[in-house]
């Protein structure tokens, strides 16, 4: 159950996020079930404004990840804070497969590597990124491993047949 301080923090955060992102949908997450308190849903843009609000509130960027859904990518930014009541905010941004979102690395330098990783695995090109190249995969690779079109192994197909 959220404590009093947490509720207050969440309320303030919600207000400042709503001010900065009038077009976004901000909902409270069910922490006990999903592990985050606040969920910001955006379409296409707004990741940099979210990042600025979060940094002003002394949140750190835990990680960024992407999920390859049919038809679109979902970029997910996880923000968390060090201070007393844990409060995790996630920002989901739906982008088209060939879209180029803006980088947040100017706000959080740690995102340079996180975005490189996403580029490496999904082929999402971030605009204004200072150093966008492969990070974990070989530099000369011509594939993006975490795309659903990449490398469905024979084993998987067998599992599919047996279990699903």
């Amino acid at each position, binding site marked *: 159950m959220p404590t009093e301080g947490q509720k207050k923090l969440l309320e303030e955060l919600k207000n400042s996020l709503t001010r900065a992102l009038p077009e976004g949908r901000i909902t409270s997450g069910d922490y006990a*079930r*999903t*592990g*985050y308190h606040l969920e910001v849903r955006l379409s296409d843009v707004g990741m940099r404004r979210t990042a600025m609000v979060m*940094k002003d509130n*002394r949140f*750190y*960027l*835990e*990680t960024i*990840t992407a*999920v*390859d859904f049919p038809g679109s990518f979902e970029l*997910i930014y*996880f923000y*968390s804070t*060090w201070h*007393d*009541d*844990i409060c*995790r905010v*996630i920002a989901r941004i739906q982008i088209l497969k060939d879209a180029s979102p803006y980088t947040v690395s100017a706000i*959080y*330098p*740690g995102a*340079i*590597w*996180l975005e490189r*990783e996403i580029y490496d*695995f999904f082929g999402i090109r971030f605009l204004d990124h200072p150093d966008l*190249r*492969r*990070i*974990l*995969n*070989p*530099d*000369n690779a011509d594939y993006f*491993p*975490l795309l*659903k079109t*990449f*490398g*469905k*192994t024979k*084993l*998987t197909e067998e*599992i*599919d047949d047996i*279990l*699903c």
Partner: protein
Amino acid sequence: MLNIKTIDDTTINERVYQLNLGPQHPSTHGVLHLLLKLDGEVVVAAEPIVGYSHRGHEKMAENRIWEQFLPNTSRIDYLSGLIYNQGYCMALEKLCGIEVPERAEYIRVITSELNRISSHLLGIMAFVMDIGAFTPFLYGFDDREHVLDLLERVTGSRLTYCYNRFGGVRNDIDQEFCDGTRRFIDRLRGRFKDYHNLITENIIFIKRTREVGIITEETALEFGVTGPSLRGSGVNYDVRKNEPYSVYPEFDFEIPVRKEGDVMARYQVRMAEMEQSMNIIEQALDNLPQGPVRSHVPRFIDPPAGDIYFAFESARGAVGYYIVSDGTRIPYRIKVRTPSFSNLFVLTRILPGNFIADAIATLGSIDVVVPEIDR
């Protein structure tokens, strides 16, 4: 082949030269590659190059059923594998709503904290070896050997454990394990005196580590540094306290914090953390409840469609599993947030201006596990 690109081509001139520290180098802890630009012995720019041990765990997850990913978890960070193992199980239990018997939770905490001690021992001693003292390294290994023996007794393996199961643990612990653990804790407490004599109070060690490689709170915020590296910078943040999971709220333990933010502070935080881990283990052994160690869980689990982010504290910092399930027996996406990834990148900020010897000390003090970064 990895193409080595320069950090910034313009900085090479008559004074500045480039040094590839690693991937084969005695102090890069595996296959880390540090690309350094040096002016004499002073680092001008640094860039860690990772990916040499990339195994594609996240892709593997999408190609196997939920249970089959269990052994992978402990291979992501091979030094605190049990903690990763526990975290994955807890994330899925939360997603599926599986109840875990209390005894199993206690056993998980005991084994995870033992694993934390073994990881810290190795981390600290490898760091001390980087500074040039070889003997403490073997003392640490001697102690670590006891932890590994204990864990081998319950889990069956010494490094890449697969002990946790959905809904509990694989098998119960016995009296001999409890006694052995108590004996080990007594022994390690005695050894701490030696460590403090040999390392902490050594004048050369102090000179080498004070005010070297300082991570400020602001830098930590920008780069997402977590774990002992963050607590060495004066931030009281530990997932076990801030976002309690398992039965951690039932134990009385402190989060050691140092203000200085230098190499020494990180070392001291790790030393203090081992003592706290010993406290936790003792309390858990004292209050160990009776009962089953595994609840009844179907052979194959079918999590409901949805997503979950589960954070927990490994020996290196805050780990997170972000799991997306589409309701089938195969994960749709598993993302692992590994602390070393963020902790290592901060080197690009803190190394410039330091000596090459300090760079090695700083790298050692951050205690990265390279396979955890590469995944």
